[in-house]
């Protein structure tokens, strides 16, 4: 079947931290990414929102690394391909994205939904991963059902952030354009993870990922249960963990410096 080219769409620009992305054609999907810094390459896979921005966490990471932050198909400025169904599609998308960028052994970092994606990628392509960092990752089944992220609606920030003052500068403007754009990103999220919100096969496959792994937990995560982070640490053969004190799920926004330093140390000590 011929590769279908997906058209880019105009997107509203957040009032803070917006930067123009670069684009890479990945099998017909114009994939937006932002890149800055020098040193070892680190790829960051974002969560289910807060896109289009060069965030303080990214800036800190780019002080020590060649930091690459792509936007998933259907998020930010990467349009949603109509064929998008599952995380398998993301795994193959990123495999090609990394190949096009010439990245061989990847220091892969994923946050939340991006943590799930990173873990899926690593379980399919363990040899392509040099180090794996999962920050409050989703993707496994906890012992207790998670709160329904889709049901929170406008109350979601209260669940994501412990320190709401940290949410103010990244929160989308309540304009019709931003609300509609957010609805579009949530639609992608709902295609991937409305049901089920875990992948039982992933837990079984994680033993394949022998690269050094770091699981970053938030002390008070009220969205993605800490049980999941602990499960990852146990299922990954070469994993350690650490807890970010005081934050909610949005650890990279609430403690960007602390999280960036922890990841920096881990990669510097463990990358080949």
């Amino acid at each position, binding site marked *: 079947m011929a590769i279908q080219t997906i058209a880019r769409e105009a997107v509203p620009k957040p009032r803070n931290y917006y930067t123009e992305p670069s684009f890479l054609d990945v099998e017909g999907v114009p994939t937006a990414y932002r890149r800055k810094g020098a040193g070892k390459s680190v790829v960051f896979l974002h969560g289910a929102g807060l896109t289009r921005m060069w965030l303080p966490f990214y800036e800190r990471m780019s002080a020590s690394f060649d930091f690459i932050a792509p936007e998933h198909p259907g998020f930010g400025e990467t349009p949603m391909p109509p064929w998008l169904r599952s995380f398998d599609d993301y795994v193959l998308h990123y495999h090609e994205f990394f190949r096009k960028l010439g990245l061989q052994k990847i220091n892969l970092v994923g946050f939340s939904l991006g943590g799930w994606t990173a873990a899926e990628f690593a379980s399919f392509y363990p040899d392509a991963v040099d180090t794996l960092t999962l920050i409050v990752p989703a993707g496994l089944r906890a012992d207790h059902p998670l709160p*329904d992220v*889709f*049901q929170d*609606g*406008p109350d979601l920030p209260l669940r994501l952030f412990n320190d709401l003052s940290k949410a103010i500068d990244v929160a989308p403007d309540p304009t*019709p354009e931003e*609300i*509609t*754009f957010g*609805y*579009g990103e*949530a*639609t*992608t*999220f*709902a*295609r991937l993870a*409305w*049901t089920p919100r875990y992948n039982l096969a992933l837990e079984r496959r994680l033993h394949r990922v022998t690269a050094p792994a770091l699981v970053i937990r938030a002390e008070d995560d009220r969205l993605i249960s800490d049980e999941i982070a602990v499960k990852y640490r146990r299922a990954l053969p070469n994993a350690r963990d650490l807890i970010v004190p005081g934050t909610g799920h949005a650890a990279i926004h609430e403690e960007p410096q602390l999280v960036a330093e922890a990841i920096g140390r881990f990669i510097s000590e463990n990358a080949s």
Partner: protein
Amino acid sequence: MNSLDFFVFNTIHYPFIPPPEENRSSWVTLSNKYFDPELGYTVYNDALEVSASAEKFGYDGTLVNEHHATAWGLQPAPNLSAMHIVANTKHIPVGIIGNALPLYNNPVRVAEEIAMLDVISGGRIISGFVVGTGMEYFSAPVSPAFARERFWEAHDLILKAWTQEGPFAWEGEHFHIPHVNPWPRPIQKPFPEIWIPGLGSAETIRKCVEKGYHYMTVFSPKWMVKKFFDSYREYAEKIGVVVDRKKLKLAVMTYVAETEAQAHREAKAHLQWIYNTGLRHPQHYHGPPGYSTKQGFAAMMALRGSLPEQPNLTYEELLRDRYIIVGTPQQVGEILHEEYVEELGIGGLIGMGTWGSMPKWMIMKGLQLAAEELLPLFREKGGKPDYLKKAPLVPGSVAERAATFGKPKYPSLLKVDGIAGSIPRETAHVAEVIDSARNGKVTAPTTV
């Protein structure tokens, strides 16, 4: 033909729940601990009695709907209600404003159940197809992001199952069924009347026009439904379809009583329950992600932007914007004639029914008064509903069937131990036939 058809609508509300100040949502999260099965026995049977009574009052049809995980309506399985009503009526059309096609992983089940109902009722079934409200998806193993795709694929599959001889294989995007072969097939040809409720989705309107389905609006103010019906007509004109006004349906809660003051006195609290309690849900439950396209979402946001949230509507606002119509039969008749038949050009009103917390006696009084003084205003001489002016699809008796259809198209021939040939079902118990067959004398009767 009568100028306006009147349908009785049955949601089976369950009003024995906490009041609004103690209840954030009557949908999705309101615990079913509030459902009391013993009380439920009465609620169900009262409501179903109202539905069946529509026939004797002389309404044009009687409808049920489908909702899940909510006190708003106790009909997660509307085909069961329909079967109950079918069993307690003789001639009236029975409509199911379910089935919520995307929610089910086997759409053939819907084709089968509707066909069963259609055959058993003698061709009286109106088959709604609905996407379901956004709220249903919070309690279903189906992403709302695939709701529309699944809806239309399920629709295509069901229509094929009803119109093409089985078995056939369905290899779709969302459903793969190696042998689609539903027994029975529906009795109405080519298939039961299809109604699709809409809240303005342009795609739904276009498809209804193209396929000749009935389009039905629900729970929206008059200025808004006018836009929906206008776009229906505009699109019909654009593609050269002549609009059959009987295919345009409007659901608006209607109540009549002896005087205007009495009508308001009786209706007010119960109709307010609908908006301030029964329909109560956080607004984002209504449009979970992917339930609409981004364009549809933006259009709806713009359209509804100027509206107060439904739970905050006052009784005066409900009346003013025609979410509800209350008055004497003559007053309501004038409104329906001038605003709905003449101005909006609709042909069917889903008006009377088991609305809100209204007790059964009050509902029945309203239904009777409307039957006596409102329906005749829109009827041809004789006062019959249109369905009674058509010949029934099935014979009324064994003799009629025998005279009309003769013997079955395919004979039933039975194999019995010790007999070489087959013996006809009708005479399988007759000794002379069995003996002759044993001696090899009887051969199968000729088939048609």
